[in-house]
């Protein structure tokens, strides 16, 4: 029995062992990756399910209503024409955005020569220039929208003012993209391929901070001077279990006639913001109360925080995908990868928009339901939605494609249907109880 094998046999054995070991290693790694992906998907699904929960009764079955029962034929025609133009204008702007960013992803790195700022600074410049080109390309569509809104007396902002405001607001976008790239490229320089695993939570943290501080970033906000409405809102806040929520007024009448309101912040910074276009006498006190109750509903159901949660669910896979797709340009640590990252991010955002709209519409429905429960005024709700349609020229029943792409609120007919459904539920509706 030979005690030693020939050298060639030894080498072959080592190669076979290495190949076997490599195969086992690769197989093990694949299993580990599959397990990790599976665990992540399960956690993602669980989180999405938790965020999806709503207090609106599952078996509500709101009635199917015809817009012609609530609105005149001339209004329906006018609002449909108004929205159609805006929708097509928006669609063209979106297509232009994608076209410009696709081109920029291919050629944007040529602009690196305009920078003396090193790796991250050059990345910031490329990021900002991407937004700048998009702004230029979308400018005519924005101008067309202003023209259309002015023509329909929805906006009275001048063209020059709009253009200047729009140009200067680019500065805020540039700050945002610079900060995001500072975080992402800084981490990519250290963690290489795995930057996204730290960057995504960092972005979520920044989003949380921005949500918390948002009231301080909104311009032209002042106290609500109307004491009667302030007292009503305080009572509604108690009814919706968010006592002490402050209500403020934002002055926007210089730019628009459209009425609106929003809720911002959480914890000590939570606020209901009413636009002054809502308080100029076109809406009754009860209608304003209903709007405030709707916004309080958002606060009561923690929609601000839930949105950050949804953002996290979007950002984690999105940043991983960006990391994957920028590898051909050397990864996000390198500035030449920034135009590609920009394209991927915007494309993902656009792809997720219909899903985001579904989530948003669900939250709006929950806020409407909350307002109905707090005010117990379905008649006011119905009148409010009818009034909102006429003052904003909102199409009560838009076409399906526009609804899917752009509607982050239920249509006005859907909202009226929810009101009707509430009115038919004697358990929840008792007008004398208020």
């Amino acid at each position: 029995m030979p005690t030693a094998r020939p050298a060639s046999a030894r080498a072959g054995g080592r190669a076979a062992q290495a190949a076997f070991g490599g195969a086992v290693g690769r197989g093990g790694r694949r299993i580990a990756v599959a397990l990790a992906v599976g665990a992540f998907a399960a956690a993602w699904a669980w989180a999405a399910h938790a965020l999806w929960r709503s207090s609106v009764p599952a078996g509500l079955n709101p009635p199917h209503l015809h817009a012609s029962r609530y609105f005149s034929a001339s209004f329906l025609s006018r609002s449909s024409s108004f929205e159609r133009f805006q929708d097509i204008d928006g669609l063209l702007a979106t297509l232009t955005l994608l076209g410009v960013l696709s081109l920029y992803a291919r050629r944007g790195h040529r602009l690196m020569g305009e920078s003396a700022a090193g790796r991250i600074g050059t990345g910031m410049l490329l990021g900002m220039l991407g937004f700048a080109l998009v702004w230029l390309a979308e400018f005519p569509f924005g101008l067309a929208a202003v023209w259309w809104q002015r023509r329909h007396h929805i906006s009275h902002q001048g063209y020059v003012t709009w253009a200047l405001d729009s140009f200067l607001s680019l500065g805020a976008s540039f700050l945002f993209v610079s900060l995001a790239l500072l975080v992402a490229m800084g981490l990519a320089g250290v963690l290489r391929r795995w930057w996204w695993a730290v960057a995504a939570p960092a972005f979520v943290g920044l989003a949380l901070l921005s949500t918390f501080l948002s009231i301080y970033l909104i311009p032209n906000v002042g106290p609500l001077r109307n004491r009667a409405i302030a007292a009503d809102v305080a009572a509604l806040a108690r009814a919706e279990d968010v006592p002490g929520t402050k209500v403020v007024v934002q002055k926007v009448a210089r730019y628009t006639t459209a009425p609106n309101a929003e809720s911002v912040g959480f914890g000590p910074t939570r606020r209901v913001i009413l636009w002054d276009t809502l308080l100029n006498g076109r809406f009754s006190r009860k209608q304003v109360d209903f709007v405030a109750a709707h916004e309080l509903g958002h606060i009561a159901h923690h929609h601000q925080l839930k949105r950050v949660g949804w953002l996290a669910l979007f950002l984690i896979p999105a940043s991983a995908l960006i990391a994957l797709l920028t590898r051909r340009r050397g990864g996000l640590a390198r500035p030449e990868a920034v135009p590609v990252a920009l394209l991927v991010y915007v494309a993902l955002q656009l792809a997720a928009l219909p899903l985001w709209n579904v989530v948003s519409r669900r939250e709006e429905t929950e806020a409407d339901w909350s307002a109905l429960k707090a005010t117990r005024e379905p008649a006011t709700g119905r009148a409010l939605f009818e009034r909102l349609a006429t003052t904003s020229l909102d199409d009560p029943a838009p076409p399906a494609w526009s609804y899917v792409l752009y509607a982050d609120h239920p249509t006005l007919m859907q909202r009226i249907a929810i009101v009707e459904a509430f009115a038919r539920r004697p358990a929840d509706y008792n007008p004398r109880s208020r």
Partner: protein
Amino acid sequence: MDAHPVRLILSDDLKRNRLTVFFRLLLAIPHFIWLAVWGVGALLVAVANWIATLIGGRSPRLLHIFLASYIKYATQFYGYFYLAANPYPPFDGRAGYPVDVTIEPPQSQRRWTVALRGILALPALLLFWTLAGSPGFGTRRRAGATSYTLYGGGLLHTVALVGWFASLARGMLSRGLRDAAAYALSYGAQVWAYVFLLTDRYPNSDPLLALPELPARDHPIGLAVRDDLRRSRLTVFFRLPLAFPHLVWLTLWAVLALIAAVANWLSTLLAGRSPAALQRFLTRFLRYSVHVYAFLYLTANPFPGFVGVPGSYPVEAVIAQRREQSRLKVAFRIVLALPALLIGSAYSTLMTSAAIVGWFAALATGRMPRGLRNASALALRYTAQTSAYLLLLGDAYPYSGPYSLAAPSTDPPAAEAAPALG
């Protein structure tokens, strides 16, 4: 390039008579009256000259002589009034005054530039206003209350104000102040010669070409310019929003720099020289701020880094190593810096005007005109010198006039830390 047909002649010896300086405003009254009378005549003749030049393609000789004499007289008078010269000027604009201009005889002019002269002159008039605009005093009534606003005027007025005190104190005007005034006067003469159709050569705002002779100086704070004048139209168009991240970062850095400057003041007062660490920090801050402003005001093209690395930018403050400083000058630094801050504010306005005009020019041609770039660089250099003086990076007073770019000795690059960002 050929010399400009309108050139400044300077034979002033910087000596000033305290008596005539003190009463300069009152002594100028007869000249003001004569200038106004001649000015009305010049205006009428200018209209006739416009028509004649449009038809003939050349300014008629008599009209040319009349208008050239008016510009020569106005330059001499304003040279006297703004302390750029000492003797009382003649009333006829005759040659030989210490601050004078020479204007070449009429040449043929392109008719389309003659026809559109009023429009074409607008950018030059904007710059002229920045250099020689009058100070003003405005009142505004709002809700029953009256508010008052004081407009400081252009560079010429500011250097004259500072020069008035300096001349009274020393009996002479510093060369820097005189040359800054001469630069404004030279540009003004070129602008009015262009407006009055004495030439179709556009006014040149380059301070390095404004004076017959530039002094060479070795100021411890200099400005190295390696810019090739090329500009990216895209980054020019978006220059202001592109600078936002830098401006935010600069503001945050400035808060720390302010604290460091106070500490530096105390330390320098006690030790007679800045501590090395503070000097390095403040030097880095100043260099970065010059990078940012050079980018914002189109003095340079590329997007700058965020940490002020030496040698990283085509327009850069060159800051000499720390030296011993007079404790007395250190103690009263803020008071001493006041005149420089005044002139610095006038230079900042010049920088803004140059950026506005340069923005359009760079968008149209893809290049920054050399004259505008150099005007901007002069303003940037002066503001850098003022900042360095305030931050106690040296005790050399800011030099307000243009000078040839003799770079001072620099701090060694090895002393700078490696960049953490950018």
